[in-house]
């Protein structure tokens, strides 16, 4: 955080100052009861904040504290809600730096205060609820909850945007706009109203009841995140296992996966599809295992049968991964990643737009990685040469739009080349003689009579 640009520092300072002014103006008007309520809600807030679930990208985290601030909006009004929001300062979470902590505190206080102001402006009644409060209170409360989410994300978006160069948080900014996140925030906002309503019946014990479902949700979210990490690690490891046989193609799946994601991002695919294409890249060549090793390693021309065996590998791959439910579109990509735009590819000879979009993306990344990697019959080619080769085949073998997108992405972000393989003597026997992915050296088939 020490590397924050001055604009971001200024922004943080302004947010904190605004929060301090807003809260200081109204703090002295509370009764003892109100202070008790603020203390209980503040405690709830701090607990929720301390147990926030970290989201995978960047430093964003998700917690159920919205419920506490919105309950405060109804029970003790804007300033009280601001004070509850300021309890972010007491978060026990390790990790955030002092500046981050200050910003979070200021941001939550301003957010809660703004939601409170909206609630009051819409004639929402501040104080203990009774039977007559409903359903009239639902409208103002819903708008206040919405305002809470919007202000919160706007303030957060501001600092992320200003600090983007320092921490490279483009991904985090993107994740922030995640619709699911917004809706879960709103969902927990509704809990705020429930706490406020229960306050009338069971007093400050209300948060205790409300805490349980919140913690369960938190638990489930954490479990999900953990499982997802485990899942990715496992798929990665298994893909690597498939590659270990051939020294030259090690890391190929991983790089094709990265290349495909670069293209997908460049053409503005939506998040879920980018994820799917990442897996498609990792799994695109699993079917190669179904091709006898001696065919893969053959030098010189192939017989018709041998060529047919190679052409079958996308289908074999499909056989393997077909039952993985969530892959859907990725399956089509795996099956057709060797089709050509001019219709001369395999396994089905589709042409142009008939080829699934995923397959066209994979084809570009696949060929590029093959050309920039070392093969037994040639060294790795430099990026420029490989790009020229891609351009040459653009429109016949590759979809021009994706070639352009890939070239643009590489020019901007660069490409991490694989390390040239160091061969141990015993491994000399098991290398691919002719890479089926290499467009500059197509497989040669013995002419049939």
């Amino acid at each position, binding site marked *: 955080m020490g590397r924050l640009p001055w604009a971001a520092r200024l922004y943080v300072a302004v947010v904190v100052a605004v929060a301090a002014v807003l809260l200081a103006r109204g703090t002295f008007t509370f009764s003892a009861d109100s202070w008790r309520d603020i203390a209980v809600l503040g405690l709830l807030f701090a607990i929720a904040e301390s147990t926030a679930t970290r989201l995978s990208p960047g430093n964003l985290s998700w917690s159920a504290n919205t419920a506490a601030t919105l309950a405060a909006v109804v029970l003790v009004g804007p300033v009280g809600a601001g004070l509850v929001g300021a309890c972010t300062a007491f978060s026990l979470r390790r990790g955030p730096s002092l500046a981050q902590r200050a910003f979070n505190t200021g941001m939550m206080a301003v957010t809660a205060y703004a939601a409170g102001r909206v609630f009051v402006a819409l004639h929402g009644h501040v104080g203990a609820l009774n039977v007559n409060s409903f359903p009239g209170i639902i409208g103002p409360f819903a708008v206040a909850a919405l305002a809470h989410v919007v202000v919160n994300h706007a303030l957060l978006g501001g600092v992320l945007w200003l600090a983007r160069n320092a921490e490279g948080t483009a991904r985090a900014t993107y994740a922030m706009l995640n619709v699911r996140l917004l809706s879960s925030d709103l969902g927990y906002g509704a809990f705020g109203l429930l706490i406020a309503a229960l306050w009338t019946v069971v007093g400050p014990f209300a948060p205790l009841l409300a805490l349980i479902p919140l913690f369960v949700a938190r638990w*489930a979210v954490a479990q999900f995140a953990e499982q997802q990490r485990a899942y990715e690690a496992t798929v990665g490891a298994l893909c690597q296992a498939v590659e270990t046989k051939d020294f030259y193609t090690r890391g190929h799946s991983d790089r094709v996966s990265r290349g495909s994601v670069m293209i997908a991002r460049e053409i503005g695919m939506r998040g879920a599809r980018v994820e799917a294409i990442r897996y498609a890249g990792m799994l695109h060549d699993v079917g190669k295992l179904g091709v006898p090793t001696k065919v893969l390693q053959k030098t010189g021309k192939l017989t018709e049968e041998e060529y047919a065996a190679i052409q079958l590998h996308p289908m074999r791959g499909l056989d393997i991964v077909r*039952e993985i439910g969530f892959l859907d579109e990725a399956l089509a990509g795996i099956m057709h990643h060797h089709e050509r735009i001019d219709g001369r590819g395999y396994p089905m000879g589709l042409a142009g737009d008939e080829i699934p979009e995923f397959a066209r993306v994979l084809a570009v990344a696949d060929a590029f990685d093959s050309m920039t990697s070392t093969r037994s019959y040639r060294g790795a080619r430099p990026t420029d040469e490989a790009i020229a080769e891609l351009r040459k085949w653009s429109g016949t073998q590759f979809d021009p739009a994706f070639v352009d997108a890939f070239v643009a992405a590489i020019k901007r972000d660069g490409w991490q080349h694989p390390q040239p393989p160091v061969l141990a003597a015993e491994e000399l026997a098991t290398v691919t003689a002719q890479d089926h992915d290499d467009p500059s050296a197509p497989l040669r088939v013995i002419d049939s009579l």
Partner: protein
Amino acid sequence: MTERRHELRRYPWPVRDSGQLLLMMAALVWVVASVAQTAAAGLQGVSSAIAFGLLIAFGEVLRLNLPGDRESAPIGFAGALAYALLIQVGANLAQHSAAQVVTVTTIGMIVGALPHLAVGRPARVSGMASRLLCVACVAYIFRPLAGDAAVVRDWGLAFSLMTSLAIVALLLEVVLTALLRVDEQRARFRVALVDELRVQLPLGAAVGASALLIAFAAEVMGLAALVVFTAPLLVTQVAFRRYAGIRATYLQTVRALAKVTEIGGYVEPGHSERVSRLAVAIGRELGIHEPQLLELEYAALMHDIGQLSLHDPITGGATIFVSPQDAKRIAELGAEVIQQAQVLGSVAEIVRRQNEPYRDADAPAQGRLGGEGPAGPPLSSRIIKTANAFDDLVGSSLEPGRAAAAVQQLRLDTAREYDPGTVEALSRVVNRRSVMQL
């Protein structure tokens, strides 16, 4: 107990397990009685009956599958419990009878099941029956007390009463589901109970707390409590659904990728799948708990993954026929692959030691049968060793005679190679299977 189950299995037509049948009959009788009673007495509080009925139906539509093929309808269950525990709606006392709670819940459940049936997903009647029975128990205990002046005035009394009833209901649900699973999967009751508690506890706590929340909030908010409350539990449910989804995907993926050894011609088609199913059945027979059972399943699916590192496939792929050194190397290589994933540490260990003899000839004897010496391979490895050997001997053959001969052959080698405990468990699993095929 086991003997009786074998008897049942002998009928050629599909027979529902006795426990399931009993449960459904009990629920049905209760429902019929309640509906009759409600019809005679007439509905009390029509608007809240409709609102809660809709909430229950909505919850049933949104039911979800928890890990381990468990069905759950948290929103519907919470709604039904709340209806049973309702004291006041706004300023009016809730005067509906227990019979009415059962009737409304039943109608809600049936309405909620219709969309599932329409798209061809079968309704799990046993799950619905057990939820209904829990709600009915709570309703019949609490409804007579709900109008009591002491309960209405003293929220502390009402709170503790409702809390304990919600806990009783959830525990009852756990016990009923565990009983059903004992019948369905041949698990041991105590093991099933602990597993069920572990899986259901988090969501169950949320359901119970939400039910109390609605019941209390309805006093202030009236029926609006239902709308406001549904949103947060919905979020919880979404989180659970995603969690269950990734768990299922994980298993699917490992299953699919375990097949690469078959496509590559390293092992016989279907080998990994069969070994894993057999291993899990043996594990269940031996009373292994669910988390370890899942690890066992992963390990069994991937037990041959090390063969991918070999230059050429072993002829026929059967690891039982290769030299111990080669088998050991395959196991080591496979464990290395799994270790790469970093998250499956114990799975890697199971795979690494899958070929170790049960009792090392050089080590001093450990005394009791199945006694696990400090250096002995883990139980899961011993199970995989047995299941793998059995499958190598029998393959996809369904012939009972061949299976019996294979078990006999393994039994002869229990002095050193195979754990006698796992072989006996295998024998029971195989017997059951051949009876089922008659």
